[in-house]
């Protein structure tokens, strides 16, 4: 169970976030000020920080920037500042993601899942989206617990898409990750790998999860379900 630190001065909002996330399998500690947050971080290890920007004892961005050398855990900013440059400023200050109020618990949970899937110290070794599972240490994939036979690049691609599930992964960054610098990449090579991977996923029962966004990249989604 992932453990979060929610830094939010509005008590009711903090409680609602914690409550909503508890239903989705996250345990949240609440800090109402930056001082509380520092105290909490000193005594416990957290997987993700959820940070509101306007806090009674300072600005969340400055706090984040000052903490930056410490590096972890990843931080997601919650803010009422939805301006054009605010997102850029937030990411520059060392935030890993940025969510503008108002949001739903589902949206927040989806962002948290994406953060926890990122490669890094606390990345989970087993990635799971719907019925697709990938163990990044043994590099083995399965659908509904039935093993999937993947070529090296297909497996690399699947891992990349799983780590950023729900988001479009741009063509160029896939090519950069799959091929060495000195390897020539023909325009159709990636498409061929994607279509082979898609066929294997479809055959195994994970139908319609791997999408092409033409001209931009690829995206792996949770299977559609009635909400």
């Amino acid at each position, binding site marked *: 169970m992932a453990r979060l630190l929610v830094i939010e001065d509005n008590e*009711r*909002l903090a409680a609602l976030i914690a409550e909503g996330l508890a239903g989705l399998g996250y345990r949240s500690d609440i800090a109402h000020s930056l001082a509380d947050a520092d105290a909490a971080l000193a005594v416990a290890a957290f997987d993700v920080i959820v940070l509101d920007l306007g806090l009674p004892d300072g600005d969340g961005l400055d706090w984040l920037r000052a903490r930056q050398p410490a590096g972890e855990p990843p931080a997601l900013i919650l803010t009422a*500042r939805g301006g*054009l440059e605010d997102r850029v400023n937030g990411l520059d200050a060392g935030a890993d993601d940025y969510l503008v109020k108002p949001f*739903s*618990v589902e949206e927040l949970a989806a962002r948290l899942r994406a953060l926890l899937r990122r490669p890094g110290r606390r990345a989970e070794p087993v990635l799971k989206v719907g019925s697709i599972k990938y163990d990044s240490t043994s590099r083995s994939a399965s659908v509904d617990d039935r093993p999937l036979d993947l070529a090296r690049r297909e497996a690399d691609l699947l891992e990349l898409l799983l780590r950023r599930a729900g*988001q*479009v992964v741009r063509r160029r960054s896939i090519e950069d990750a799959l091929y060495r610098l000195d390897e020539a990449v023909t325009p159709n090579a990636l498409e061929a790998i994607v279509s082979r991977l898609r066929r294997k996923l479809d055959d195994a029962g994970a139908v319609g999860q791997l999408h092409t*966004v033409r001209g*931009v990249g690829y995206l792996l989604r949770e299977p559609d379900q009635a909400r």
Partner: protein
Amino acid sequence: MKGSDSIVGRLTLSLTLVALIGALLLLLFIGIEYRMSFAELSDASALPAIIHELTEHVVIPMLLLATPMTLTGLWAIRRALKPLEEAARKIDAAQGQSRGVRVEVESLPLEAKPFARSVNALLDRVDVAAAMHEAFAADIAHELRTPLTLLSLELDQLDGAKSEQLRLDVGAMRRLIDQLMLLAQVDAERAAHTSPTPVDLVELAGDVVAQMAPAALADGRQIELNGENSGVVPGRREAIAAALRNLVENALRVTPAGDTVVVLADRPGELAVRDGGEGLSPERLDILVQRLRRADHASSNGAGLGLAIVARIMAAHGGRLVTNPDRRELRLIFPLC
């Protein structure tokens, strides 16, 4: 008398009066000098002589005096009023621009300067009021976000048929708040004259498509990027991205499920969005774009202020938003440099 409403009319009227009074005085003077009386007028033989005398001493001098006076007067007035006309034209031309319009006082005739200064003072007050209005809109939008978040999170805990509708309503409010903030910011940036930076339109379009694809797919619509010829334009990246995002949102709303929204980066300095809707006529686009100016906010379907904001962002970049209903396209056109 209608003519007296214009300065030229007044001048003509007063010059006519001067001529008439002059003619009467001259007539009187001549009458006294030549001891002519009205009695002699009845004498038929004397009449031509009298008329000759009057023409020579009254009509010709008056015409010689009055004609150049009228022409010079007209010329002087036209010349003096020219700067006022210029100033009026400038103010009219600046209609689309909300801030910083001023009358140039120096070029105006002395008599018109106090008036021009008062107009400028009024424009100053209008600008200050506009700035306050924008800041107020941004503040309101900002302050609304937290209660709206609470509402949205409380809704997440509710089940039932009603809660889904309420969630949609919260979503609509959130869109409106986003648009208000965006609008306030675009205007503030324009007022501050932020300098533009080179923006790679193809790369920007890719970002916007990547950002919007997950939600589009979740709604059963495809989205794709076509072409890579748009090149680089000077501008404000986040504002242009917001404009394109608004167009894509609009396109997703009118495109039936299962269809595709296409973002086109097909021509230099241009980006377009093709949807699966019925196409938007130029007249209809005009109405939607004018909504901000007319303060006509009676929107029912959530189309909101999106297109009006896009048009304003484009205007801030010296470009325009055009529609091509036959191709079901809305196109952003930036000036080529």
